[in-house]
């Protein structure tokens, strides 16, 4: 059956790699994000790589009024409807410390904005008895750290949301994959100090695609982050609170 992927935050390099992977499988892709011109070029690229349909569509996680437009466009496609969420924003923690009013924006970008889109899409997915949601969180959501705990908190909220959505969509033949990437070689991490074991966006996209195929629930990518985070989660709080990692 034909499938259409709504890709939120499609300008990011991870999303781009995922869109190309979906395109190569012959699926349709709706590329949603803020840079319309850039996404139009990506749409051309996806079509040339085999996408049945590829289109750029405006999306800003902070513009609730625009969400209905996305949902309507998805509804007009036949077949299975799926969505992949790559949005999120991570201003340096020091900027947030200086200006706490940045917090709602981070939470909207990384959690509540995309959650609202998914919430609106869920009934359609249920009606069609299938489809997949890919939610890209972060290992930062596994434990609050001094370096980025606002972003981490938003992603933790998103992960909990995804777990609930999984519980719901599973009943209707759908599926939800929660993805927790470690360090990925994107424009967000370019030139940041302290990066190690950095994965390419293509590698991450391939891992996600396989997880969708195999109906995995929660994946870390690259896989070894599962073990790194297992250790980090098990450090007792009385020690963790004094650490700087």
């Amino acid at each position, binding site marked *: 059956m034909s499938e259409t992927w709504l890709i939120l935050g499609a*300008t990011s*390099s991870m999303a*781009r790699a995922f869109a190309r992977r979906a395109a190569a499988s012959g699926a349709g892709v709706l590329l949603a994000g803020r*840079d319309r*011109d*850039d996404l139009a*070029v*990506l749409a*051309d*690229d996806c079509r*040339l*790589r085999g996408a049945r349909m590829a289109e750029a569509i405006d999306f800003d996680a902070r513009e609730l009024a625009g969400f209905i437009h996305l949902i309507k466009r998805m509804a007009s496609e036949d077949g299975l409807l799926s969505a992949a969420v790559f949005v999120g924003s991570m201003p340096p923690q020091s900027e947030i410390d200086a200006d706490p009013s940045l917090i709602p924006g981070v939470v909207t970008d990384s959690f509540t904005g995309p959650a609202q889109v998914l919430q609106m899409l869920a009934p359609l997915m249920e009606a069609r008895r299938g489809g997949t949601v890919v939610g890209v969180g972060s290992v930062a959501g596994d434990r609050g750290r001094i370096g980025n705990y606002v972003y981490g908190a938003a992603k933790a909220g998103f992960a909990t949301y995804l777990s609930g959505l999984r519980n719901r969509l599973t009943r209707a033949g759908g599926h939800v994959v929660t993805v927790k990437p470690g360090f990925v070689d*994107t*424009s967000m991490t*370019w*030139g*940041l100090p302290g990066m190690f074991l950095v994965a390419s966006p293509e590698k991450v996209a391939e891992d996600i695609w396989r997880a969708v195929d195999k109906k995995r629930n929660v994946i870390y990518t690259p896989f070894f982050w599962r073990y790194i985070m297992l250790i980090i989660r098990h450090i007792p709080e009385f020690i963790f609170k004094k650490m700087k990692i």
Partner: protein
Amino acid sequence: MSWKTTTYSGWGRALTATGEIARPERRRTLDALLSDGLIPACGMRRSYGDAALNDGGRIIEMSRLDRMIAFDPATGILEVEAGARIGEIAAAFAPRGWLPAVMPGTGFATVGGCIAQDVHGKNHHLAGSFGQHVLSLRLRTASGERTVSPKSDKALFRATMGGLGQTGVILSARLQLLACKGDVMVVTERRMSGWEEFLSHLDGSTATYTVGWIDATATGEGLGRGILEEGETGAGLTPRRVKTRAIPINAPNFALAAPVVRAFNNLYYSRVPARGRTVVKPIGDFFFPLDKIHDWNRLYGKRGFHQFQCVVPIAEAPALRSMLEAIAASGLASPLAVLKRMGPGRAGMLSFPMEGYTLAVDFPNRDAARALISRLEAMTVAAGGRLYFAKDSLARGADVRAMYPELDDWRAEVAKADPEGRLQTDMVRRLKLRSEA
């Protein structure tokens, strides 16, 4: 963060630069980076030497601006961003019956890099160089963005093909792809027992794709022995490409010591049966045999390596033989050595190809190897041949001047496109390409 300060190198890792690199993922970001003036661009830094280095300055890596924009299945014309890799274009289009008309020996080279070095492939004798299949390109010069085609701006176009990025930042190009039968290769491999036999087979070959591996350690009777590969595209099914592997660390120095290389070359030579054989392979295995091993340049250890590549006119074949004798006698060569027959095709003022034979040999970066390469360079000059900018890291400006007779015309065009000289790279400075003689 836009700029990353780092120390980086070309593929040979013998020369390094320290400076700032940006890697824009969107056109908007690139435009912003260039708003205060031009900055040199690079692709995947698969050039061996310093063509893609800018020590103490900035460079923009184009590899994330890599989208395919339009394709016409009726004509085979593909428009693509400059950062797209040749191997990805081949993988996407070969199943539909089209290939990039010219492909270098690594699929990681970008379209921008292939233009800026006017690269050649295993079909150079028939298809010519990369730039001969570029119908037009979008170029960001000092005076803004423009479309450049051989018709609209002949001189600027010819200065850009093989022009080492000195006319501007290449944004995208329209390429004429070449029709192919499918995405497998039918390859005939034959042993060549020595130099004369090798050359006569190269001259007589009627295959579309031809390449010779040469055992640069063999001396005496066996001098110039090797394996001739002749390939044609075909349709069919092949086993999937074997998984890529990576060289995780720098190899120790003895990894490529003379006895190891000789033993390897013996094995490699006798792998092909004495009567030859025909095999079917995926296109990637034929065109980009080394890409299966990621970071194979680490095999040469921390000090890196050099590739010497020259081309000499047909009549100068004996000079090339003398070079091979010097190489074989030195015992310094690595297993990577290639002999090809080139046709006359070239697209730019600084393009490498000329009708003749080209020899490429890798050497670990050692004093003795550098001294040998310097001798080989002098022999190339004497033979009226040329050194290849994509491989060179040791030549001097004076040698190069004689090899590229259109250098003055090139310099004049470049001065118009980048009057402030902002696009200069380490190679351009080392070889004094943009300064008067």
